[in-house]
């Protein structure tokens, strides 16, 4: 048992922390937000230069063969700096589908563009009524010749506005909530019949609602088995949840740090407000919540490699519950302890709170995952 980073992992952490310290202060972030699509091509290029966009891919595919711990390191750092760029959508989720299910030809077509930063991806999964159930799919993919025709509507597709390629879940067989009959398809964002409504999200990212009307794709669009890919989707979404847990840990670390700094310097009644015991205890509770979250983020990271899918899902669900509870407490109390200034767009802390809040509702909220653990027979 060992919770320390090895030498290479430490170097990775230093390198991404260094890059973000140099190029991602709060003022720069505001500028990046105003660029087309809501994030910076230049920063994305730097991430590519440092090899971070190729991190999880096999060396044979042009990547660096990084594992879960490496992704955790990157996501924590991205969280800490409140990064807008589509790492989750492109590298973690898009990359995940390609790594686990991509054919050689599919990998050859998509991985190099991800690694060199020239292409980004988006995951079109959420539907009007599916909420957090990954098997609840009404978008259809109907066989036409060798290829497929896709029809349906997807919502809140992160990076949907900018992505070159969309990864779309669609039903090839069965009824709305059947476990089988779900496929995953690579769809060029500029394909005929794809229409998008783009918008910023609460946390300053960008998303799109996307309609697919008779979108024709070739036989090579299907990732894995088009009739039975729920297990694949669950695996990749678990990896996304694991990455979100790590991002949230980075966000909480920074929220706590900034709150402690604030109450050390903010003076009322002639003294620093951090000298008041009620505030000290609140900050201590924030620390406890953040540490419990860090433990579960590590647990989830290691669970990502569990052989047994049920065991993996159970562990990841448990982690998402802890992270959800911790982030709500840390986020809300960070605002409370900052007082009035915490309510303003001008202060950094509110933006951390907003991102944390959106993470809770991504890929299953606290109640959803708690129910999964409860119904799965518990954790002990």
């Amino acid at each position, binding site marked *: 048992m060992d919770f320390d980073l090895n030498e290479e992992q430490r170097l990775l952490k230093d390198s991404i922390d260094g890059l973000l310290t140099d190029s991602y202060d709060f003022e720069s972030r505001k500028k990046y937000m105003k660029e087309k699509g809501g994030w910076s091509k230049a920063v994305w290029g730097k991430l590519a230069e440092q090899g971070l966009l190729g991190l999880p891919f096999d060396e044979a595919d042009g990547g660096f063969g990084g594992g879960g711990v490496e992704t955790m390191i990157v996501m924590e750092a991205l969280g800490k700096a409140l990064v807008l760029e589509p790492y989750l959508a492109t590298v973690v989720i898009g990359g995940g589908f390609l790594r686990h299910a991509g054919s050689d030809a599919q990998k050859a077509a998509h991985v190099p563009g991800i690694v060199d930063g020239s292409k980004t991806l988006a995951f079109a999964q959420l539907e009007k009524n599916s909420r957090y159930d990954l098997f609840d799919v009404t978008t259809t993919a109907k066989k036409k010749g060798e290829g497929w025709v896709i029809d349906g509507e997807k919502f809140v597709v992160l990076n949907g506005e900018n992505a070159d390629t969309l990864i779309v879940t669609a039903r090839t067989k069965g009824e709305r909530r059947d476990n089988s009959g779900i496929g995953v398809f690579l769809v060029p964002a500029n394909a005929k019949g794809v229409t998008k409504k783009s918008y910023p999200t609460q946390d300053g990212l960008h998303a799109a609602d996307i309609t697919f009307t008779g979108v024709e794709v070739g036989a090579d669009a299907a990732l894995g088995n088009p009739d039975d890919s729920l297990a694949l989707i669950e695996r990749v979404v678990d990896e996304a949840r694991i990455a979100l847990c790590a991002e949230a840990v980075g966000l909480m670390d920074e929220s706590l740090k900034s709150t402690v700094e604030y*109450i050390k310097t903010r003076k009322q009644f002639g003294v620093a407000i951090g000298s008041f015991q009620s505030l000290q205890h609140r900050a201590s509770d924030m620390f406890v919540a953040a540490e419990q979250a860090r433990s579960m983020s590590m647990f989830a990271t290691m669970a990502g490699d569990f052989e047994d899918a049920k065991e993996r899902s159970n562990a990841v669900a448990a982690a998402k519950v802890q992270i959800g509870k911790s982030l709500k407490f840390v986020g809300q109390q960070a605002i409370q302890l900052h007082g009035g200034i915490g309510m303003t767009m001008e202060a950094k802390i509110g933006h951390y709170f907003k991102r944390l809040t959106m993470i809770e509702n991504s890929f299953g909220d606290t109640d959803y995952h708690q129910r999964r653990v409860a119904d799965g027979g518990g954790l002990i």
Partner: protein
Amino acid sequence: MDLAFTKEEQAFREEVRSFLRDNVPPDTRRKLVEGRHLSKDEMVTWWRILNKKGWGVSHWPEQYGGTGWTSVQHYIFNEELQSYPAPQPLAFGVSMVGPVIYTFGNEEQKKQYLPRIASVDDWWCQGFSEPGSGSDLASLKTKAERKGDKWIINGQKTWTTLAQHADMIFCLCRTDASAKKQMGISFIVFSMKSKGVTVRPIQTIDGGVEVNEVFFDDVEVPYENLIGEENKGWDYAKFLLGNERTGIARVGVSKERLRRIRDLASKVESGGKPIIQDAAFREKLAACEIELKALELTQLRVVADEGKHGKGKPNPASSVLKIKGSEIQQTTTELLMEVIGPFAAPYDVHGDDGSNEAMDWTAQIAPSYFNNRKVSIYGGSNEIQRNIIAKAVLGL
């Protein structure tokens, strides 16, 4: 980073498990599972079995009878004891005064006390808290005055756990009234059979008698019973309290209780079906299990850190252990209360020897709930723990 236990560690866990299966007296285990009180004999018998195996003072240096285990092995051993369950070694001797003696005591004291702690020939108790000195321990007033080759001790200690069984006490006494409060304290050990020592039991809200008041009235103690240097007692006390950072989370205890709750909840009915089938209850149980998993991981982080970097610089995460550990223990007893419902009411009147064997074991659930309110109070209340995090970790 690697979460998995090594093959050797897994084999060690099996070794501990099978030793417990073969050697813990079944009645001792049953009483622990059912939340009943163990007699002094039952505890001593088990500790002697453990000591015969060479595991009685496992974390002591090997020259004094320790095992030389890694920090992970200690963790596994404790977890297995807690979750079997079997009584853990008596903390006051093994974890508290023992390490103070082998670290700060002279050769004579090491020879005199350490073997008798290991063999449980001496049952030790702790003389720290006083009626006016709880969280503010350093304000203690019990006085030891030097008269020739003797100390004359006067004062009162309280919350002295199992003092009714004790042969020896280690005591913080004020030896210099003129010094700043932390500076004038000495660490003195003496026999509970000394003339002038009076033990008065305190009945706690669960109905049991676990703690006592201890009065000292001109108790004469040989000067050589001072451990270490005069007026340095506060340093030894801090050393003692900092020694047991990870056991305090009691993850194994909570695990055992959660297994019991799950088992019980699939038998006890509510609305014509087992309670475990009630979604709201199941979610509460899952919530507690998730908290415990997070705590277990936090504890493992601390353990792995100690194994790698030594105990010198405590991992900041260690201050989480007491707070979350106690909260979770309390939650498990609440959940047990919830499962047992109206059958929590019957009360088992304790026998003169402290035993509570007259009623069905369900009568012990409410007492366990009442008794567990103590875990967020003792060992530095959770409010004190928050002060420590604020000052030592966050720099407030």
